[in-house]
């Protein structure tokens, strides 16, 4: 064994690598093209959200939570508000629950389309990337129409939602569903269920057997692709989802076999696109009239939360899997004692690292992409800027200064002075 060790090659994939959208590091030990060992190193995208949150009140954290990740921005503040609602015992109006369902499913559609494109790109099939991202524009437009923003739509508020879904939105959403049903989905199915190139590359690549998926607590499409019938919307009896008939989607219903490979994970995503569209239609149909916020005024809400003292867990099936937020309140303060979250990518990453052993190096990017990693979700824990004397770490301020100097050097004529935009963080100065 030791004699062979010399022939093994250690290949770092990351922190910067074209196959990865976000910085993470996989140290892969190779014997030829075969993988022997995978080690994961995280923390390249550490922003210290939990630490920042110690200095924010409940409503400010809502917007911080949204910025954990750009893709699942709705999921994060939805789950956070659910945790706070459970902690403070706030009851959400039913119409708000329906609006949350609709926006959540719209987000799932855009996230899954994004991931289908990314997987196409990692196997060198760029046409899939460009066309599926083109199709994704439609749902982004709808989200913009509802929330006012393509990415951080800020629909949620603790105890309800901030934006109503009116008649014109309903019409636009139904039009969009029709467009996806008739024009996009047949093509997506043709590519991901029947295309020989895709099948050749995705079948039997990055296999996560059911046993490993359970042992490593894989989540979301990664787990369901391995035949684990688990979906928080269904298991948790979340919100109004039971009325809408949401069930875990497994590849068995589409292809009849469950292998737990990348292909199956993609099949699950395609299935969930269909499911999301059905859910949206049903939700629009069943949505009752009524108010959309439990507490209309934010300061009244904060006052109510100040009195709350307890702990709450929010769980939600984000597009990538189970998302958990935990909030513990403290009496007399509008700041939670603890806010902690766990993203589906975190367990999935370790499950896939385990599953990659014995595979070919060509499967690494596609296997990593198949869990739809969201590293900015995973690396969120604490803020660090340590000067150990050995390394000089440039802060944002230094970089800005350097950038301004460079601009001056290139063009001394620049008259404009950099202006402070916005008020910044009001508590930042007091640190």
């Amino acid at each position: 064994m030791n004699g062979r060790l010399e022939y093994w090659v250690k290949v770092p994939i990351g922190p910067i690598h074209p196959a990865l959208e976000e910085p993470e590091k996989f140290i892969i030990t190779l014997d030829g093209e075969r993988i022997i060992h995978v080690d994961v190193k995280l923390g390249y995208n550490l922003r210290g959200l939990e630490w920042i949150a110690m200095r924010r009140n409940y409503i400010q954290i809502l917007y911080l939570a949204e910025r954990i990740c750009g893709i699942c921005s709705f999921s994060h503040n939805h789950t956070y508000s659910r945790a706070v609602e459970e902690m403070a015992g706030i009851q959400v109006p039913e119409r708000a629950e329906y609006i949350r369902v609709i926006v959540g499913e719209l987000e799932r559609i855009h996230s899954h389309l994004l991931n289908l494109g990314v997987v196409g790109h990692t196997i060198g099939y760029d046409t899939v990337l460009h066309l599926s991202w083109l199709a994704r524009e439609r749902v982004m437009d709808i989200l913009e129409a509802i929330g006012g923003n393509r990415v951080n739509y800020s629909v949620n508020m603790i105890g309800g939602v901030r934006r109503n879904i009116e008649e014109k939105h309903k019409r636009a959403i139904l039009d969009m569903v029709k467009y996806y049903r008739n024009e996009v989905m047949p093509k997506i199915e043709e590519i991901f269920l029947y295309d020989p190139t895709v099948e050749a590359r995705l079948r039997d690549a990055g296999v996560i057997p059911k046993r490993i998926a359970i042992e490593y607590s894989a989540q979301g499409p990664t787990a369901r692709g391995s035949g684990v019938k688990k979906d928080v919307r269904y298991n948790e009896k979340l919100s109004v989802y039971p009325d809408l008939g949401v069930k875990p989607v497994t590849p068995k219903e589409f292809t009849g076999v469950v292998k737990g490979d990348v292909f199956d994970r993609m099949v699950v995503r395609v299935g969930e696109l269909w499911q999301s569209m059905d859910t949206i239609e049903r939700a629009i149909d069943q949505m009752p009239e009524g108010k959309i916020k439990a507490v209309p005024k934010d300061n009244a809400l904060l006052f109510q939360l100040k009195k709350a003292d307890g702990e709450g867990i929010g769980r939600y099936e984000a597009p990538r899997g189970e998302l958990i937020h935990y909030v513990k309140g403290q009496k007399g303060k509008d700041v939670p004692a603890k806010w902690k979250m766990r993203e589906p990518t975190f367990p999935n990453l370790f499950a896939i690292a385990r599953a990659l052993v014995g595979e070919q190096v060509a499967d690494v990017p596609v296997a990593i992409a198949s869990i739809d990693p969201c590293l900015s979700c995973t690396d969120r824990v604490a803020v660090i800027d340590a000067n150990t004397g050995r390394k000089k770490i440039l802060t944002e301020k230094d970089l800005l200064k350097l950038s301004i100097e460079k601009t001056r050097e290139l063009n001394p004529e620049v008259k404009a002075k950099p202006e402070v935009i916005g008020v910044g963080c009001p508590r930042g100065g007091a640190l």
Partner: protein
Amino acid sequence: MNILYATLGFIGIYTYVSFASLLWEGIDRKLVARMQRRVGPPLLQPFYDFLKLVSKESIIPRDANRFFELAPVLALATSIALLAYTPLGFEPLFGTKGDVILFVYLLTLIGFLRVIGAVSSGSPYAQIGAQREMIILVSREGPMMLALFTILWRLNGLGVTKPFSMGTFYEHNVWELGTPMSVIGTVILLFVFLAWLASEIEVGYFDIPEAETELAEGTMAEYSGRHLALFDLASAIKAFVSASLVVAVFFPWGISGYLDLIGLPAMVVDLLFHTLKVFTVLFVSMTIFRTVTGRLRITQATNLFWTRLLPASMVGALLLVIDALGVIA
């Protein structure tokens, strides 16, 4: 033709092919972009890329050895030498008997020099890319050479001045045989050649050694600046030359005869017409192929060569041979 004119002509051809091959790269990128419903880069983008790369600093890794700098120069030199034996609508300038073998050898040498350069860079990505390039190199030449030499052997039967030379194709072409069996055989071999062409320029299924998302450009991972520019130019010329071979074998017809031209004007017209045919072949084998497919795994690609293309090539060759023997008997 005396040696001075030949040399001047050669320099002219080299300049022309460099431009044409870079232009094709631009056309290809634009076409792919349009098929993917993107706008795409401007037509002259490869020229801008090339000029920019030439002017940029070339970073040489600490662990690299001398071949790292030598390989791109040798690759470009090889591709220039290759032009002397490339059929470009007329018989190659330095064509002689048996020059097909030299042509195949030089074409393979470019790939081999890329491997040398990659191995010398000391980067693990480049090492894996080099391994893959080597495996593909070994697999892809078999079917192509079998097909090429069968056709040449068959054409020799019709009586040529220089056996096993590129000039053969301009005296007789393979469609002239005309018998049904030979036509079927030729169509099969055409298919083999198109697949070989795709793997030679590493697109679609065969974008394996440079797999951007897997190996971060693989063999080219450590190259930058002018060294990369030289490799880029060599690859572009190689694509043009490989397609020229396919054109010469299967579509050698010129148009100068119809226009009653002789001498230099005839060569120019034939060259332009040849370029058009090369672009058409590349459109099928490169642009469309890379739009509608993704990359295979290295094992699947070698499998494809040994279990699909080699038998296809054998069947095509056998059909041609049986046809020939049948004529004799």
